[in-house]
Every structure is written in structure tokens, then in C-alpha cells.
């Protein structure tokens, strides 16, 4: 089975600060990591490979430094890594990103299963996975929490819903997006890290994946960012300290003042 895992390099949001003047993320000095949801995608790809044999190829679109994310994927046990990198890819929204990745997958050839994280922690759109499936005209199962059965013909998976799940069957090839309940990602091994350090990452430009120039990067992106703003800070709440008989009166009048009561 040939599996492609799409990964994105994102800033480690546990460390992110917002520049109050421009309302944009302060990227300086912030470490880049593999989008955490994509770590579950990599792990699931590796587990399916270990069950059925085959190979896992990690695919990423990004600037040259995204090579680090692919090296990490290799250190975990991915067999190959492809970086789609070209100045003309820059400024892509989810539509152009999905198109570009779908062209990359076409160029990898004979792919049976595509696995994406459910969404990236920087954009939070959850659109790119289903977008790729659409471009490739493949069935898509989102929010997968468990792959119950899979072979080269079909897949049966649990799509996690609020308070339950759907059991969905689809034909293979197909695309799934995974949630964090699906597995516990493994740690890299030293041998894996050493091999990854030496490994050559395949780099493809726009020309290499035969894409239409008006469908990639900013040109292919109908989404325009008009304004970026940070959500307003929540005001501090009022705290009424003391025993209820002494404090209820104050609470009631405060609620009345706010027009709640």
C-alpha cells in the first residue's frame, strides 16, 4: 500500500505572541514544528504500513526550511519525503494549497491512501484535506478516530462526531483526515534521526508537478485577507467574596445593572 501523509510546518503556538500594532503573529524566535494533528496522520500511516506493508511518503508544501519538518517525518519512519517548494506557491489559500498538494500526489503516482491531520493549528480551517480529495475526485472521510478495516479495495473508519461516531466505508484509493484520538504518535529513534540527517529530500517546483499557474499561490487564491485583528481581551469578572447572605444582594444589583435580570 502506498500512503501519502500531508504535513504542514507551523509555528509552535504554545509560544506564539501577537504584535499588538500589526495584529500579526510574532514569528521571530518561535520554533517551527510539524502541525500536531499531522503527527497523528504520520503515526497512522506508519501503523497501516506496518500492518499491510508498503511505503509512506510525507508530502509538504512550504519554503525551503520546511525541509526540517520532512526530516522529522523521515526520522519517525517515513520511507520518502517530498517538498513542494517554489516562489510561485507563496500566498496560497486553502484552495490553492489543496490544488498544489493534489498535483504533488499525482506526481508521486499510484497512491492508495492519503492521510491528513484534521486541521492545522495556525489556520484552523480543516479545508485542505477535503479539498485535496475533491481535486483528485476521491472519497473522503474526515475526523477519523479509528481505522477499523483497510485493504487495497476498501476502508472502514469511525468518523468522530460530537457525542458519538459514524462508521463509514469507502473504496480505496481515498483520503482521510484524522483526529488526535486515533493513536499515540511514536517517538523518533536515534537511527531514524541519523538516517534522516543524511537523507535527501525530493524537491519539486511548480514545473515539476505540471500545475496550472493561475491555480497556485496568490494567483490561485480567491481568499483575500482584508484585516487581521486579535480578539478583544475579556474584561476581568467581578467577584463577590463572603457568605451568600452577605453577597447575594450585590450580585443581584450587578446583574440588574447589566440588564441581565
Amino acid at each position, binding site marked *: 500500500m502506498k500512503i501519502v501523509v500531508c504535513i504542514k510546518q507551523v509555528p509552535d503556538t504554545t509560544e506564539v505572541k501577537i504584535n499588538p500594532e500589526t495584529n500579526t503573529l510574532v514569528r521571530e524566535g518561535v520554533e517551527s514544528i510539524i502541525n500536531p494533528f499531522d503527527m497523528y496522520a504520520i503515526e497512522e500511516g506508519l501503523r497501516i504500513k506496518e500492518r499491510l506493508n508498503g511505503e509512506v511518503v510525507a508530502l509538504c508544501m512550504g519554503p525551503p526550511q520546511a525541509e526540517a519538518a520532512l526530516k522529522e517525518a523521515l526520522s519517525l519512519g517515513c520511507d520518502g519525503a517530498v517538498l513542494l517548494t517554489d516562489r510561485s506557491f507563496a500566498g496560497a489559500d486553502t484552495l490553492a494549497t489543496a490544488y498544489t498538494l493534489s498535483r504533488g500526489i499525482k506526481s508521486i503516482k499510484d497512491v492508495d491512501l492519503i492521510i491528513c491531520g484534521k486541521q492545522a493549528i495556525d489556520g484552523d480551517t480543516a479545508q485542505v484535506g477535503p479539498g485535496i480529495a475533491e481535486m483528485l475526485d476521491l472519497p473522503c472521510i474526515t475526523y477519523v478516530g479509528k481505522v477499523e478495516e483497510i485493504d487495497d479495495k476498501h476502508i472502514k473508519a469511525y468518523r468522530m462526531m460530537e457525542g458519538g461516531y459514524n462508521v463509514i466505508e469507502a473504496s480505496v484509493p481515498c483520503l482521510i483526515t484524522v483526529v488526535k484520538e486515533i493513536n499515540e504518535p*511514536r*517517538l*523518533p*529513534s*536515534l*537511527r*531514524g*534521526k*541519523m538516517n534522516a*540527517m543524511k537523507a535527501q529530500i525530493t524537491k519539486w517546483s511548480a514545473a515539476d508537478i505540471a500545475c496550472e499557474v493561475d491555480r497556485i499561490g496568490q494567483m490561485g487564491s480567491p481568499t483575500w485577507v482584508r484585516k487581521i485583528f486579535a480578539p478583544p481581551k475579556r474584561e476581568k469578572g467581578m467577584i463577590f467574596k463572603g457568605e451568600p447572605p452577605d453577597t447575594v444582594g450585590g450580585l443581584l444589583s450587578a446583574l440588574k445593572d447589566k440588564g441581565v435580570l
Partner: protein
Amino acid sequence: MINYGFTEQQIMIRDLARQIAQEKVVPVRAELDEKGEFPREIVKLLADSDLFRVFIPEEYGGLGGGALDLCIVTEELSKACAGVAVSYAASALGTLPLALFGSDEQKKKYMPDIASGKKLAAFGLTEPNAGSDAGGIETTARKDGSEYVLNGNKIFITNGGEAEIYTVIAMTNRGKGARGASAFIVDKGTKGFDFGKEENKMGIRASATRELIFDECRIPADNLIGREGMGFIVAMRTFDNSRPGIGAQAVGIAQGALDEAVRYATQRVQFGQPVSSFQAIRHMIADMATKIEAARTLVYYAARLVDSGAKNMSKFSAMAKLFSSDMAMEVTTNAVQIFGGYGYMREYPAEKYMRDAKITQIYEGTNQVQRDVIGLEVIKESKRNSR
């Protein structure tokens, strides 16, 4: 981050060991300590991450590192839990007699499984009447045709019961004293080889410490390491190589305790300000950090001497072990002090570091024995130089 002149590979080893220690060991250490439970799952993680390969030569499935690589991993694990760290390091200790004196066949047979972490190793020297005085060993090995027959008991053996491969010192000629000792490999499951009492310890409680019992235990003569009569040399050379590892353990314990104490001191407010703003606490922190760094430098230096193949490094190994373990006892005691009343309570990690630190002053030769080694060496050098 300061990299202490590490190679790229050593930095990689440190980062991975740190990741496992902080992400996987810290969350479970209190429970392992409380229950005195051997950390099988963590040992498997260490194996899957290739960390048992760092101290094994490449031709036997390792990554070809040495004492320094082992110290790096041990230090990182000790920052999180010394019980886990010693379970790991004891496998290296059990491997050393083989690595230093084993034949190619013995290495081929045993080392790949130790490298992969499939099997743990353990070293058996201590007996009820032979600890610091290794010459007092009473376990015997009698040659009988193509076999040796072992009889006797070893106590306080780290990884006892958990390890599959044991390197054991026994007397082949009791009349010769220390020169009558020999080193053997004994596989778990060999008839006549059993385990006794599991010890209930003050610290490093996640590690397994058990008695080894040999009762007419027959092993192939091929399991002799080196030659008959070399057992004492095997043991001493093993300790020369392993003692920097105890130093690394002590440095890790002290660093872990300091990290917790500093975090606490910056959060704990008394008299309207964090206690870290008081000079009394700040100076304690400064002394603790400085002593840790001094010990670390000595440990890395001793480990590098071992790896360079230097002869006569006994003194440096002993110094690294001695200085670091005394330092760790002092630093962890002060960490408890910084935590105040909370430091004395089991809910906080400070007291565990203090309990764990104590053993580093005792095992692989008490610090009194280390001082003997160092003192003797220094006096010998003086005599040599004055000639």
C-alpha cells in the same frame, strides 16, 4: 543552549533522551516511586528509541559511542527519575565486562540483544560479606569438564530478575584471594540460577534490586570472560569505566532538583514577593548551580578520558563519582530547604530527589572507597615524580 563540545550525534542523543525523560518519565515517576514498580514500558521506549545502542560498538548493533554518550543519556533520565536512569545504566554496567574483556564470539552472542534493548544486562559482584572488600567474595565457580558450577549468593543486584544477561564475579581459586576471582556470563533461566528477595529501598525505588542465588548452577566453560583469575581486574576496570556514569546520575539528580527548586522559588510568594527575590535563596541557588556545573565538567572530562582509551584513569573516574555524589546530596538537601515545609511532603518532587541522591554516595564503591582510590593514586604519583 551550551553544548559542552558535544558532537552532532551526542546533541541528538541528549535531545531525544531529554524528550523521553520529560514527556514520558516525569508524568509517571511519582507512581513508580510510590509502588516501587519496575518501569518496563519506559525501558521499551528507550529500546525503541535506540538509546541502549549508544554504548555498544557498531559491529555489534550499537551506535559506537562510549562513556560520554552513556553519561549524556543517564544524566537526562536522572533529571526526571534516577530509578529509571539506573535501570538503564545498569544494563551498560552489566555489559562492560563483556565489552572490555569478552571474546568476539561472546560479544556477537550477547551484545546485539543488549543494543536493541531486547535484553537487559546486570552486573553481580556484591555479596553479604563482600561489598567494598571485593576480595572477600564467597561465591565459587568449580570447573567440571566443559562446564563451571556456580554456588553462592549475590545481593543488591540492580536489574536483578529483570535482566536476561548477568556478568558475575566468582572465585575459581579461593586460596589466591583477589587473584582467584573470575568473571562469567550467566543467562537468566539457567538451571540452578534463581532470584531471592526484592529489596524495599529508600530511593531509586523504580529500579529492581534483588538477590541472585546460584545453587549448583552449571554454565558452559565458554561463558568465562577473559581468563581464570582475571575477575578482580575485570571488576575494577568495569568500575573505572562506569563510575563517570554514577557521576552523571548524580549531576542529573541535582540538576532536576535545582530546576524544581528554582521554579518553586519564583512562584512561592512570602512577605509580598517571590522567595527567589530574597538574597538568602538566590545565593543558595547560585551555589547549587555552580557546584552542579563543576561536577558536570568533571564527569564529562572523566568520561572523555575513558573514551580516549587513557590508562590510569581510575583516579579521575573515582573523583567524578565522589565529587558529584557528595554535591548531589548537598544540592538536593538544599532543594528541599527551598521548598520549605512543602519540600518535606511526598506531593512535591523535592524529597524524592534527596532520597535518590543518597545511593550515589554508596554504590559502585562507597565514597570512602573512592577516597582510598584517589588518595592511593595521588601518593603513588608523588612517589613516582620524586624519583
